[in-house]
């Protein structure tokens, strides 16, 4: 790296003059006239900038050679350039049709709070959990629209479990590896979803990132370059493909949730107050679309805000901004005919032993949680 040169000469060759001004470093051994040196530095800087701007265009050439560039735009052009997408999971719709669930649960890992068997036993109706770990409101909306509503089933209620400001944060968990999860629930064109994302990214500097990604086709490149180091190491250690895959699966299990220590800090940080502005964000979120589509399909929605992991038997702290946000969210949801339920400060959920890592619950706690929910929302379970 050029840095190496700088390091070598940096502290030794740079001095502060009596006036305090810095005296330029000398980067070559032979003395040069200041103008010549300045010009040379200028040319070097221009070359570096040119290399930074033009160099990554090589990705386009590589992607052309790999046939990636011929791909059509994705369903989220506001977010990303062309890339190879995973197919829409049509099987879930068929399963829902066969199952005809009385209740559906849509969420990330928080959906695991509701124990399916317990709820089935209590309600005497099939329960379909549609859970995608580490997902956000974009995934939840698309699962509702493209799986539940599109399947034609009419469950008595669809539960959507969320944390704090998730429902008005459409950009939450839609980039990077999360894009492959979205592929499972997204159709080839998702114009309303794209419009929401475009609306939220337009005001910030997100469009710069998007423009860079498009210009250099970085998403398509990441698809094959990502994990290259990890793959190379795995191949070096284990030649056989099947054995290597088995090892990586076993490794993931060994480092997985079952082996984690209870981490109080994990996932329990209160939502950033910047996101806790309901009026500012609600129109550019998936919440209005969820409420509209569910209403048109005659499906009742129940939004459940899950409890953050309690601290010393007390509810996790909430900022005043978050409290105001939740009050407005509740009023909005109920004004649109849906049900809102807040687990926060529920005394039955304050014991720390109910939780494993962060705000995930133990198996026994999930049964307790489901019974508690059933008792508190009896009107949803006729």
């Amino acid at each position, binding site marked *: 790296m*050029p*840095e190496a040169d700088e*390091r070598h000469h940096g502290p030794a060759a740079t001095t*502060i003059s009596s006036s305090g001004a810095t005296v330029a470093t000398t980067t070559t051994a032979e003395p040069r006239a200041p103008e010549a040196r300045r010009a040379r530095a200028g040319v070097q800087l221009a070359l570096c900038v040119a290399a930074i701007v033009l160099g990554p265009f090589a990705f386009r050439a590589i992607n052309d050679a790999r046939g990636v560039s011929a791909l059509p735009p994705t369903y989220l052009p506001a977010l990303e350039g062309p890339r190879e997408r995973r197919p829409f999971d049509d099987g879930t719709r068929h399963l829902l049709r066969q199952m005809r669930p009385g209740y559906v649960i849509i969420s990330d890992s928080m959906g695991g709070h509701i124990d399916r068997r317990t709820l089935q036993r209590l309600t005497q109706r099939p329960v379909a959990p549609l859970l995608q770990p580490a997902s956000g409101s974009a995934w939840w909306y698309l699962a509702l629209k493209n799986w539940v509503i599109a399947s034609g089933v009419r469950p008595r209620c669809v539960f959507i479990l969320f944390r704090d400001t998730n429902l008005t944060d459409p950009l939450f968990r839609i980039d990077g590896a999360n894009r492959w999860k979205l592929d499972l629930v997204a159709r080839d064109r998702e114009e309303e979803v794209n419009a929401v994302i475009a609306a939220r990214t337009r005001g910030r500097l997100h469009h710069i990132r998007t423009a860079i990604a498009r210009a250099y086709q970085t998403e398509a490149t990441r698809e094959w370059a990502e994990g290259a180091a990890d793959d190379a190491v795995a191949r070096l250690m284990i030649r056989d493909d099947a054995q290597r895959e088995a090892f990586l699966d076993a490794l993931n299990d060994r480092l997985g949730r079952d082996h984690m220590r209870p981490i109080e800090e994990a996932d329990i940080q209160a939502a950033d107050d910047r996101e806790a502005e309901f009026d500012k964000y609600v129109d550019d979120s998936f919440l209005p679309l969820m409420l509209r589509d569910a209403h048109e399909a005659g499906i009742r929605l129940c939004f459940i805000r899950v409890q953050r992991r309690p601290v010393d038997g007390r509810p996790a702290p909430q900022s005043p901004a978050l409290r105001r946000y939740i009050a407005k969210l509740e009023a909005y949801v109920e004004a649109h005919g849906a049900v809102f339920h807040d687990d926060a400060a529920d005394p039955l959920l304050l014991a720390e032993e109910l939780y494993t890592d962060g705000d995930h619950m133990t198996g026994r706690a999930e049964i307790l949680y489901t019974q508690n929910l059933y008792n508190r929302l009896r009107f949803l379970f006729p």
Partner: protein
Amino acid sequence: MIFHSVDFVVFFCVVVALYWRLPQRGQNVLLLVASYFFYGYVHPWFLILIATSTTIDYLAARGMERRPEHRRRFLWMSILSNFGMLGFFKYFNFFIDNVHAAAGAMGIETSLPVLRVVLPVGISFYTFQAMSYTVDVFRGELRARRNLLDVAVFISFFPHLVAGPIQRASFLLPQVESRRRFSMDQALSGFYLMCWGFFKKLVIADNVGVIANRVFALADPSFEILWAGVFAFAIQIYADFSAYTDIARGSSRWLGFELTENFEHPYLARSPTDFWRRWNISLSTWFRDYVYIPLGGSRAGGWIWARNIMVTFVLSGLWHGASWNYVLWGFYHGLLLLATRAHSILRPGAPPRRAWLRVPQVAGMFLLTLFGWLLFRETDFGAIVRDVQLSPFASTPLERQAGLYLFLVAFVYSIPLWGQSLWVELGLARRLDTSSPGWPRMALRAAACGAAFAAILVLRSETSLDFIYFQF
């Protein structure tokens, strides 16, 4: 605001573009506004703290000069206000927890308040920097500044505000006060530093940080997995912290400032003494000048010297965070220095500097450093005890293979870091500079910048982690 964000890139370009159009006084006004904007970007209330600290230190220093007979009082005013803020935000809960635990051990029930407030980022850095100003004025090594703006810029200068390197007033203040001229050489070297810094943060630190985080989240790591995680953390903390320093120094150069170096390839150190000459140099020298030497330094010799070393290192550990594991980490490094000294007393004379000895010396020191990082990363004493009791003979074949795999992945990501350290330490950089012709060298440098940016675009970790030293 964080360096590795588009927000910062835009902010920085705007500041630089405006900066060089202004006269010196205007530049300082812009720097202050930009620094406060940078610092208050997420939590504007942080600005109250830094503004308070600045005002008190300015007044204290002025008071020392105007009323020399009360200068000790003014010094205490500065010390109490700076350490008061630091203690309240950083150590209050630690204190309460320990009181609670001690009372519990004696069977006394306590109900003490807990502070539920975000620790202001960088508070340890700027309070130490502000302290250096008032202490230097107190010692008569620096004159008190009349211009509040200059003092405010010195304390809040945004490139290094959040995670250092901590600058001495005698070094940075004259630069704030003097006229600055744009230098293409300086801008170019700053550009290199920033490129390298962003690469280290986004490609190396964040990728190996994911490994370290996963390992240290395990309740039951095996010996191999644990030490692969410790190795990953060692790479992460060096890449992360030195990246911040490089970006800070690089962006300062674009504004006509020079900041002191903070790292000199610490993992190539041969001994504990050598390590502390290379690691977090600005903090080490701060503790040396304001704690170790006032305590008596090495003048007294013997036990007094040993006490001074241990006090300095324990305080340095505590500076990092309000947790006993940091104290333990400082204590451990203090012990290493004492052991080095004891060795030199038992075997007097200069240690042999044979070239072949360097490899085992560096490897040995690196292993000692790794153990220190285990103490640093594990915040729970029980976990530390468990970790040191782990046996390599109790691991399953999968765990051995997993440990090797994680180590190799971390090592692959760290190759540029090792390469750069060796490149400089072996003098290859100087040789290339003096022997190779101009244009190929320029092309090589440009290609390196292009490659670094391309790598950032496609190899940066999905998990963007905060700079580790933000929490301190």
